[in-house]
């Protein structure tokens, strides 16, 4: 693998760009690996990367039924923030945000992390109190956030309308170091680094069964044959339940559709991310000028990866009162992803009833921001059987009643 640098750009510019090598090798499956990951989304790839980098385990394959990053990682609205309420959440999301800051250098791949700031609007008195509480909790957790009043909101977002008739803006929770990143680049950057360590990324390879002997995982069946493994990491987001069924256990997860849309490109008008949780909508502006818009998730199980008109209408309607200019925009395209929702709206990073088989899922509507932190912790869990970042997110928390209730702090799909 050749390193990317300003020097390499100049060299290739003089060479008609003929000297670039492929970013990652298109591998063929071997008979056996020490570790197999199912799912080449951000979380699977990041885990593989830190498994190699931190623990020297590189006899690893990442199996993907479609194409690399084609799941939720390539379908999300890329909001990165760590202003959660509960301590275990703050720890893993802040670790992730912190790693995002240096990720382009670490991977030698530009993930376009843009710490432009994330503002969560308070539009009811209940929300004001809720976000003030979160700001206090964040201060104790060492996460830099601040509750700001309406005047400051207007300074940060000049296009906002503060005095809407139904939901006036009463303030907001401001995380200046939150922002966005290029979703595809995160998947591609990790993939390139994994491939450089000798790991096999195998696309168009669907896992169709999980093999085990005496309660211990031994391998997987795939559309490209059986492959043996010592340990198995299931990192398939919306398909977590389907994989769990293959492995013979059940998960407290339901899969539903979440959708997003983008407008026609317009001139720069908003240089932060704004989330309006009471009305269920959020918005940011991409580098291309499109307004990237998201809303709430469907309430019923769905695997179809498409959206529905009434949800687009609901989302846009929600934003128009606070951002009147949205009413004049044409919307360009819309898509959906299948997100994995747990009962307490927090993820699962855990051992499973099948020995050697680990599961990383339940990120639901908000796991893009967590990719580096989740990979960091989950790699440690798989290598050592225990990890401080993951322990609170184990599967037994449901049986034991140790919920990490973030449904209040998250409020909206993001």
């Amino acid at each position, binding site marked *: 693998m050749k390193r990317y640098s300003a020097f390499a750009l100049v060299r290739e510019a003089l060479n008609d760009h003929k000297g670039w090598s492929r970013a990652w090798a298109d591998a063929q499956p071997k008979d056996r690996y020490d570790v197999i990951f199912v799912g080449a989304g951000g979380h699977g790839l990041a885990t593989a990367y830190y498994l190699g980098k931190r623990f020297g385990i590189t006899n690893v394959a990442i199996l993907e039924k479609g194409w690399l990053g084609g799941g939720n990682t390539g379908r999300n609205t890329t909001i990165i923030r760590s202003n959660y309420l509960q301590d275990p959440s703050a720890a893993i999301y802040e670790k992730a945000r912190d790693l995002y800051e240096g990720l382009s250098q670490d991977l030698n791949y530009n993930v376009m992390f843009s710490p432009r700031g994330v503002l969560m609007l308070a539009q009811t008195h209940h929300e004001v109190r809720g976000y003030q509480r979160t700001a206090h909790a964040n201060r104790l957790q060492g996460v830099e956030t601040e509750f700001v009043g309406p005047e400051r909101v207007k300074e940060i977002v000049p296009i906002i309308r503060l005095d809407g008739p139904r939901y006036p803006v009463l303030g907001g929770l401001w995380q200046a170091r939150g922002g966005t990143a290029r979703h595809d680049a995160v998947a591609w950057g990790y993939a390139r680094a994994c491939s450089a360590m000798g790991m096999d990324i195998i696309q168009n390879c669907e896992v169709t069964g999980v093999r085990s002997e005496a309660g211990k995982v031994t391998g997987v069946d795939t559309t490209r044959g059986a492959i043996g493994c010592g340990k198995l990491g299931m990192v398939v987001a919306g398909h977590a339940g389907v994989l769990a069924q293959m492995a013979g256990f059940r*998960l*407290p997860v339901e*899969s539903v559709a979440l959708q997003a849309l983008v407008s026609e490109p317009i001139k720069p008008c908003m240089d932060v991310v704004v989330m309006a949780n009471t009305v269920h909508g959020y918005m940011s502006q991409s580098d291309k000028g499109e307004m990237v818009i998201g809303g709430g998730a469907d309430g019923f*199980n769905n695997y*179809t990866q498409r959206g*529905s008109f*009434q949800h687009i209408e609901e989302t846009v309607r929600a934003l128009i009162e606070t951002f009147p200019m949205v009413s004049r925009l044409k919307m360009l395209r819309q898509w959906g992803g299948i997100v994995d929702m747990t009962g307490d709206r927090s993820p699962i990073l855990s051992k499973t009833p099948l020995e050697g088989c680990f599961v990383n899922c339940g990120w639901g509507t908000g796991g893009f921001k967590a990719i580096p932190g989740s990979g960091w912790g989950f790699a440690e869990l798989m290598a050592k059987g225990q990890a401080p970042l993951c322990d609170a997110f184990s599967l037994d928390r449901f049986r034991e009643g140790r919920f990490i209730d973030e449904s209040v702090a998250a409020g909206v799909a993001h």
Partner: protein
Amino acid sequence: MLVFRCPYCGVDAEETELSPGGEAHLTRFGPGSSDAEFSGYLFDRENPKGVHFERWRHSYGCGKWFHAARCTATLEVFGTYPAQTTEPPKDILDTLAKKRPGWTWRELGAK
């Protein structure tokens, strides 16, 4: 968009007229049950990619709860039936046998 026929008032109601209520035919475990049974009842879900049975409420119509059989992979609706039962009626099972031979779900019926 999903369209269900409400088994009570006979109206063909679309998604926005209804509220989803999650997995149907859950056996309610309470005091005296094991930890595994209780947490299974509260949290574990079937979440199939394919045939599924659900509870829906005709919120902006007659207001009643009913059951629906549906495919989560295609959004095809196989039929609806009243809520006062622990398993789907025969006509729904016949439709499923024809349209989705070999379909599976967790064990049905009262326990």
